């Protein structure tokens, strides 16, 4: 016996192969029959890339984002793998819609193929379930907030909603168990069910054969090789589109890590759920259940009833029209959602902020300190560049400005009534303060009661009269005072001008500048105005913002400046973040070339 005969006798593989490859295709191979195969191909691709991702993914609220970050930015080809998985999921949704359309238009759902159709609908739902669960797994802001909304909508399901939500979320709050559950569904339960239903779907398909598109243009042919070739070309085309998207977008997006206390106004679901998201806007308080559950449920029921409706005389036309209407309606809603966001400047700001934080956290994660065991969310919470502007907007911007805005680019309700703090204590900032033309503008003392104070008078009267010699001295004094701050941005010029700064220090307490008349500098002078020793340094600023009414600073003449530390308006940690941000002290990644 030849070895292959032996193998066939033991396994019966020839019969199987014959059945698989020589299925009859009535009317010969056609391009319109490829959609089912492209979907199987996508699923196989998702299984392969998904398992590879699984080897590196860790579902918990301290490690999910971190492990995805690691895949995306540190592992060989990780961005490409994740990109393939991400964009193939989107391709699958599109192909599902196309496949459904083709089946309905060709009448392939009608008797005796009801079960074939129903198993297909079920596969559609399961695939959407994969998208919904997969969206959360990176545990970034986008996935977190979209899932919060989705599971809150689940909770309005009549009778069992709240319990259902609690089961899905894995407790009363989102956390470790939300991830373990979503992951078990995403990587185990749903794919398992999909495999079962694909087997059933193909079994039913083979049982009743293909529904030919009339008129048949050619004689019947076997599945192999003509139809297989067409299927293969279609799969290649799908892959080409996916790879193009992956490469063009440098893989899938990864937002900043989920933070339940950080609002995320850019929250939007994946694009193919946008129509549902938009739909909900039209259901005023309390009628949401119609938009979220009843109407979509009815539409699905109508879809499932198509085989029966199709028996009716005009049924087929009704089915086709219904599907077109649903698709067009969804498309219209999607367009509305996108158009509204495009027209909304707040949304653009929110998206820009989200991108900034996503980028920043990666910089911090790649810093020498790396990601602490508490997770990457700590990196952003302790980053002056991220928190400084927010804290400034919350606590300082009702009086101060930063470069003309509230730190975040917005405009507070009231006009500025205290100094603009961008570049505080830098040479430039001090030169403006000591400029007779600028000292009394709102940029400096204009909005405060010091507008008529001694300092303004000194600048406007004495400094205004300075001759060239004195101007030189003033320049040295500014350099010396600014050097007290030890600003990172001035490190080089401070070092370069060391000799000049020494002269400046002398001038500061000397008879011409005579700052010591009202300020204490390195032990000399009268404490009328704020102390100038260490002016603008971290210690000085922390102490000043902590208690501006301290005798070392304004004392009793303090003008409306809250005692942020003394009165516990902000915590020492927040104070440090504001000061570090004002002083430009934050981690800056080394230039790419030296990495």
């Amino acid at each position, binding site marked *: 016996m030849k070895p292959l005969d032996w193998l066939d006798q033991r396994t019966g593989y020839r019969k199987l192969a014959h059945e698989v490859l020589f299925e009859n295709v009535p009317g010969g191979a056609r391009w319109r029959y490829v959609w089912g195969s492209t979907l199987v191909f996508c699923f196989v691709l998702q299984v392969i890339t998904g398992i590879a991702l699984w080897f590196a993914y860790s579902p918990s609220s*301290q490690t999910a984002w971190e492990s995805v970050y690691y895949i995306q930015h540190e592992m060989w080809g990780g961005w490409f793998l994740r990109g393939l998985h991400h964009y193939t999921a989107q391709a699958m949704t599109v192909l599902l819609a196309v496949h459904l359309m083709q089946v309905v238009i060709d009448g392939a759902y009608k008797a005796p193929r009801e079960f074939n159709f129903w198993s297909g609908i079920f596969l559609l739902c399961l695939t959407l379930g994969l998208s919904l669960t997969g969206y959360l797994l990176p545990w970034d802001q986008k996935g977190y907030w979209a899932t919060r909304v989705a599971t809150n909508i689940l909770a*309005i399901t009549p009778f069992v909603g709240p319990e259902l939500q609690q089961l899905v979320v894995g407790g009363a709050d989102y956390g470790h168990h939300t991830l373990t559950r979503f992951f078990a569904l995403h990587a185990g339960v749903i794919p398992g069910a999909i495999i079962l239903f694909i087997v059933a779907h193909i079994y039913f398909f083979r049982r009743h054969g293909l529904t030919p598109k009339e008129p048949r243009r050619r004689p019947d042919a076997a599945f192999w090789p003509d139809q297989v070739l067409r299927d293969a070309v279609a799969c290649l085309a799908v892959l080409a589109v996916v790879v193009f998207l992956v490469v063009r977008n440098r893989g899938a997006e990864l937002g900043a890590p989920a933070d339940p*206390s950080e609002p*995320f106004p850019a929250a939007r679901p994946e694009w193919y759920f946008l129509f549902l998201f938009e739909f*909900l806007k039209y259901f005023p*308080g309390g009628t949401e259940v119609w938009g979220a559950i009843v109407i979509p449920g009815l539409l699905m029921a109508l879809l499932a009833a198509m085989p029966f409706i199709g028996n009716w005389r005009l049924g087929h036309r009704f089915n086709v029209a219904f599907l077109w209407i649903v698709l067009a309606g969804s498309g219209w809603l999607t367009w509305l959602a996108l158009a509204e966001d495009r027209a909304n400047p707040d949304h653009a700001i929110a998206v820009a902020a989200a991108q900034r934080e996503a980028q920043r956290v990666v910089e911090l994660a790649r810093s020498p300190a790396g990601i602490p065991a*508490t997770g990457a969310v700590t990196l952003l919470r302790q980053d002056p560049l991220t928190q400084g502007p927010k804290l400034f907007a919350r606590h300082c911007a009702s009086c101060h400005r930063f470069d003309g805005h509230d730190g975040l680019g917005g405009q507070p309700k009231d006009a500025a009534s205290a100094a603009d703090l961008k570049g505080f204590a830098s040479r430039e900032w001090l030169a403006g303060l000591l400029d007779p033309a600028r000292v009394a503008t709102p940029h400096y003392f204009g909005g405060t009661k010091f507008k008529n104070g001694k300092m303004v008078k000194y600048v406007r009267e004495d400094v205004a009269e300075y001759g060239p010699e004195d101007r030189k001295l003033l320049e040295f004094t500014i350099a010396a005072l600014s050097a007290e701050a030890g600003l990172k941005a001035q490190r080089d010029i401070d070092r370069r001008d060391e000799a000049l700064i020494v002269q400046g220090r002398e001038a500061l307490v000397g008879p011409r500048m005579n700052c010591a008349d009202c300020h204490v500098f390195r032990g000399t002078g009268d404490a009328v105005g704020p102390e100038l020793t260490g002016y603008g340094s971290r210690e000085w600023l922390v102490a000043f913002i902590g208690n501006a009414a301290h005798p070392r600073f304004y004392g009793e003449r303090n003008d409306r400046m809250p005692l942020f530390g003394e009165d516990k308006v902000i915590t020492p940690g927040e104070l440090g973040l504001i000061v570090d941000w004002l002083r430009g002290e934050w981690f800056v990644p080394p230039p790419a070339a030296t990495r």
Partner: protein
Amino acid sequence: MEPHPPPPAPARRNFLAQAAAAVIGAITLVIPAASGLLVLLDPLRRKPAGGGAVFVANLAAVPAGGEPRKFPVLATRVDAWNRTPDVPVGAVYLQRLPDGGVRALNVACPHAGCFVDYKAARDNFHCPCHNSSFALDGRVLDPKSPSPRPLDSLETEVRGGTEVWVRFRNFRAGVHEKIPV
């Protein structure tokens, strides 16, 4: 391949054997299934932590003009096996009232839980998700808003004349009544 001989039809008196096979089969499945189900249903008995009053901010940090300001609420967060003290568990808008008291509104939108924004220019709250809008006291402004109820107000207390304490909790989204979760 030789064809399989057809099995003999089961005899009626085999009933006992059939019943026994079904019961034993069921038992072998019930035990693993039930033990799995039990763990699967465990989250149903988990209650949210907290509900007690927590210190949120100093009165001095709340703008005197009655304009709302957002503050994170720090408390102990329990996430399954982790217990982390002093981390943000949510956020509130605090506003001073003319009578010297403080109003606290949970920032979570009662529609589906997005965080609402205070819009200084319009002096009201707006939800960036499905466009619900709320007045400063939390009332729904636009009747077309998808939110089924006003923003959730929380009990506050000013301790020692300077510290604002809030009984922080979340409420079920999407329903008319304010039901704590």
